[in-house]
């Protein structure tokens, strides 16, 4: 690693270290009572403990399952509709105004409707995740697909591919960088939305654990699910980036 990189990393670690130090200081000095701000050591040990607790892990698994289900739906719908809108004027004319009105609407406002129609359990959360995550994926797919060089498609058409097949065989792979960027944003959104949905109205999951701890005044237990979902989010993001790099092996490097 170059000297510059090392110094940059050190500088970057500074604010995080400062915040941790502040946290530690406030807790240790007694300026903040443990009921408001538990010491970092307490939070860490509780976190470690919970990670070995099957009940906690089951909640985490529930959150993950809902996340993935919603995300999967968002990918299928987002990519499917985005591609279809590129390939067909009719579809585009239908989709464009719909996206324009629905995109700025906070989908979280639909949550009560989902609860009323789909119930209190998994379905409403999955529906909300899907509703929120679909839009960035759809937009990214549409943008990427529209920007594909027509001569790529022409080359395939000349080789004997039909127009419809060309959408899947040429446009989709060519638009993959864009599509995957949209999917990454969708994944982060899925993470956030599932957690929030569980905080607002759920009987299980990591989000629910946070609210439950708040109601029972177990401050340490409030930090644990928050840290857990953040780590999860970072891990999923990193994992996705790895996958993305693999899938885009042939594409020129971008910024």
């Amino acid at each position, binding site marked *: 690693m170059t000297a510059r990189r090392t*110094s940059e*990393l050190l*500088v*970057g*670690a500074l*604010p*995080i270290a400062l*915040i941790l130090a502040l946290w530690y200081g406030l807790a240790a000095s007694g300026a903040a009572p443990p009921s*408001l701000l538990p010491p970092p050591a307490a939070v860490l040990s509780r976190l470690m403990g919970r990670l070995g607790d099957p009940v906690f892990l089951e909640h985490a698994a529930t959150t993950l399952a809902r996340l993935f289900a919603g995300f999967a739906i968002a990918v299928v719908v987002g990519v499917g509709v985005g591609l279809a809108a590129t390939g067909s004027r009719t579809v585009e*004319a239908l989709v*464009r*105004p*719909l996206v*324009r*009105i629905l*995109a*700025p*609407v*906070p*989908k*979280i*406002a639909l*949550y*009560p*409707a989902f*609860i*009323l*129609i789909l119930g209190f359990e998994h379905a409403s959360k999955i529906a909300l995740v899907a509703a929120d995550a679909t*839009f*960035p994926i759809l*937009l*990214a797919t*549409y*943008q990427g697909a529209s920007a594909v060089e027509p001569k790529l498609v022409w080359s395939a058409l000349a080789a004997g591919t039909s127009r419809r097949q060309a959408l899947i065989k040429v446009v989709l792979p060519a638009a993959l960088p864009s599509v995957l960027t*949209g999917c990454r*944003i969708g994944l*982060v*959104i899925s*993470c*956030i*939305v599932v*957690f*929030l949905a569980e*905080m*607002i*109205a759920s009987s299980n999951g990591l*989000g629910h654990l*946070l*609210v439950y*701890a*708040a109601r029972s005044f177990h*401050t340490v237990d*409030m*930090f644990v699910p*928050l840290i857990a*979902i*953040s780590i999860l*989010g*970072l891990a999923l*993001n990193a994992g996705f980036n790895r996958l993305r790099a693999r899938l885009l092996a042939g594409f020129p490097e971008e910024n």
Partner: protein
Amino acid sequence: MSARLAAYPGVPPLIACAGLLALWELAARVFQIGGLPPAHAALAELPRLLADREALLNILDSVRRMAVGFALALACAVPVGLLMGRSRLVAAFFNPLLMAIYPVPKAALMPIVMLWLGIGDASKTLVIFLGVSLPLVYHAYQGARAVEEKMLWSAAAMGLGATRRLVRIVLPASLPEIFVGIRTGLVLALITMVTSEMIARQSGVGNILFNSLDMALYETVYATILVIGAMGFLLDAAFERLRARLVAWAEPERAIAVGTT
């Protein structure tokens, strides 16, 4: 629908709206789901909702908190972002921290923040502030980074000091990108506000939503959803107009992947 009519910018979304409402009405009648009142019932509830003094106060409270949180974020985040864009050191300092905060749902901090700041406005405003700051910093950063070096050299040759350069060259040049950040931030502010109200259940539209849900006033629930939806749409549309006018000199903007919590 004739192509002429569709060319007017407001018409297709209006038709899409009408279409969605019609679909809703149809689905409610055909499927007879308990939790889905027909569209006309929800629409009928709207005037009553908007005339209700308490509800209006709630909505205004929401908007006020949003505005304050947003203004604070703008004041803090944009300078930080601009500095990050021009100084490697500042960027190196803030980047890892911001990347660590990014996946944390800001509204999820509500219970903890409420623990420290109580159930009043401060906690919700803080959460909105945190939520909106991130896209603002990011876009200010990107905008400042992209400012052409040569423009700054010309300015330096003309005798402008570092601070003046930042304010008089970097800021205007980054404005298009900052406006993209503001647009994202506005959407986020609305979302964070509604969500934090749903969690805190003290006042505001989020509160009305879940109160009505608890009391099984289904038409009110859906009417409130329509209100929130309209707020989102109008806010975004109004801002777009403003943005287009203010930064008309910039290159055409790419479509934004909207919507994060």
